[in-house]
């Protein structure tokens, strides 16, 4: 059976801006919307919307402190995507095994 990738993860990470925000949080640790907006090239409301979608996918968590909200990445949410790639690789490894068996039994 060929595994199917996790819908929401793929959909969420398919947006380059959203992916950049997620990668920046992975690299830099906890950041506010303001800090994320500065280097993103998009408006603060747009960044907020991306953060909301990332949070829905479980890729980002938030922490309120006074009037500020701090966002951090949850790379553990990538596990289904990593599992999918591993399962897909296993599918092909099995096909390679079968191909090798076939070739061993074939005449030239």
């Amino acid at each position: 059976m060929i595994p199917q990738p996790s819908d929401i993860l793929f959909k969420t990470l398919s947006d380059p801006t959203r992916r950049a925000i997620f990668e920046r949080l992975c690299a830099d640790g906890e950041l506010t919307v303001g800090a994320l907006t500065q280097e993103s090239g998009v408006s603060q409301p747009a960044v907020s919307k991306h953060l909301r979608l990332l949070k829905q996918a479980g890729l980002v968590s938030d922490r309120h402190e006074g009037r500020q909200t701090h966002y951090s990445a949850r790379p553990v949410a990538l596990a289904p995507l990593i599992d999918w790639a591993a399962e897909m690789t296993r599918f092909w490894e099995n096909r390679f095994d079968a191909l090798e068996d076939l070739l061993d039994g074939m005449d030239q």
Partner: protein
Amino acid sequence: MNGSPDESISIVVEREMRHPPEKIWRALTEPYLIGEWLMKSGDFRPVVGHGFGLVADWGAVDCRVETVEPNRSLSYSWDTKDLRSTVTWTLTPTDTGTLLRMEQEGFRPDQKSYYRGAQAAWPRFLAALDEVAARLE
């Protein structure tokens, strides 16, 4: 797919085979032989643009031949209900046989609007997954 090979790696499986490229090519392109190791295919032809199907007990894959270089490389689209991807086979002769390489690059169908922009960065992202996974340990 227009990306360079570096950009398009998502899943790669490689293996050294004790068989010449010509023999492996037969197994990759003759419908009866394809059915023996991959999935059942009654209508495969190594002709660019030719559409064919692969069937197993768990479901079906829709394919279309994209490139054909006899005994060297073969690629076809690999679409299932939820996955749009391309599978590329590369055969490299070695002293003892052939190095066979399979690369599958996949995208989700609902990514169409993002597809152009995502094409360059997505595989790099997939490649980075290993690092992220290592950090999770």
